[in-house]
């Protein structure tokens, strides 16, 4: 079992930015149009933000305000599918016998976002990029709790997914729309999460785990479960 406090959270999806937006969505969850809208990252200098993909912009937009005023803040970055649009562009160039873009290539790797985060914030704390299955939220939490256990006063956990290019639609079925969720975690007993074996045929949650968590946080739920394949994550909040 792991335990932690959620000191603050931020989230972004197309059209959903504020707590009020998320409150409305979580009462009546619906699919969102992926569109081309990207979150505002004008707090970054133009020369630094010009290369950021939407995935990176989403991660920065939820993470940056949570990191405000905190020095030496470890970061756990979670994304199952990563920069699928960049990967697809690179593979398309390769297929057409075209030379590859060095920018696309260098920013397509899974730890590119934490590398940019480190450079732009001058942050040298531990940072990890995790690609887990549909329960990346919980795997990221284990990583974050290990850092808290080692003595970090706070850990930033960012979960984000980009809408994959159409060509991947047959294989990627767990990204209803682009989203990012940032959690500022601190040591404490507020939340406990334990793992147990899932009964055969345990249903998946309707929405990705990070978005389900937001719904529970906003509704004030104190006990819920997230099942993924053979695993069930049992969430409990100390009243």
């Amino acid at each position, binding site marked *: 079992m792991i335990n932690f406090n959620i000191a603050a959270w931020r989230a972004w999806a197309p059209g959903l930015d504020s707590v009020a937006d998320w409150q409305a969505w979580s009462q009546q969850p619906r699919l969102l149009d992926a569109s081309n809208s990207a979150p505002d990252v004008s707090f970054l200098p133009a020369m630094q933000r010009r290369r950021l993909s939407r995935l990176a912009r989403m991660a920065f937009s939820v993470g940056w305000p949570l990191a405000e005023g905190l020095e030496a803040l470890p970061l756990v970055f979670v994304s199952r599918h990563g920069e699928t649009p960049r990967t697809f562009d690179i593979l398309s160039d390769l297929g057409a016998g075209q*030379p590859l*873009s*060095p920018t696309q290539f260098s920013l397509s790797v899974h730890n590119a976002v934490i590398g940019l985060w480190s450079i732009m914030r001058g942050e040298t704390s531990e940072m990890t990029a995790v690609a887990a299955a549909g329960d990346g939220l919980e795997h990221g939490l284990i990583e974050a709790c290990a850092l808290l256990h080692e003595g970090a006063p706070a850990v930033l956990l960012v979960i984000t997914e980009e809408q994959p290019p159409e060509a991947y639609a047959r294989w990627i079925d767990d990204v209803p729309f682009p989203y990012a969720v940032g959690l500022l975690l601190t040591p404490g007993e507020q939340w406990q999460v334990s793992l147990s074996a899932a009964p055969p045929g345990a249903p998946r949650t309707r929405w990705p785990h990070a978005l389900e968590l937001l719904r529970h946080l906003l509704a004030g739920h104190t006990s819920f479960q997230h099942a993924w394949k053979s695993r069930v994550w049992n969430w409990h909040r100390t009243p």
Partner: protein
Amino acid sequence: MSDLNRDIKQLIIDALGLEDISVSDIGDEQTLFGEGLGLDSVDALELGLAIQKTYGIKIDADAKDTRNHFSNVASLAAFVTAKQAA
């Protein structure tokens, strides 16, 4: 401003995503990398690729004088002109 200089400036803006900069903001003799425009090593690779694709020329990344050709827009224009004539 010669047409080639103007084209190269536009190429720099497009290839490197310099959204908030226009052709008139870049001087012919302005240093592109480090100082001046403030481009970095990834930009150098990206710009090299864009120049090769656009003008159909080959750039030897290891050649000693490649760095000099990339110092500003005027030197790049001279390099492209010379390569295309060769």
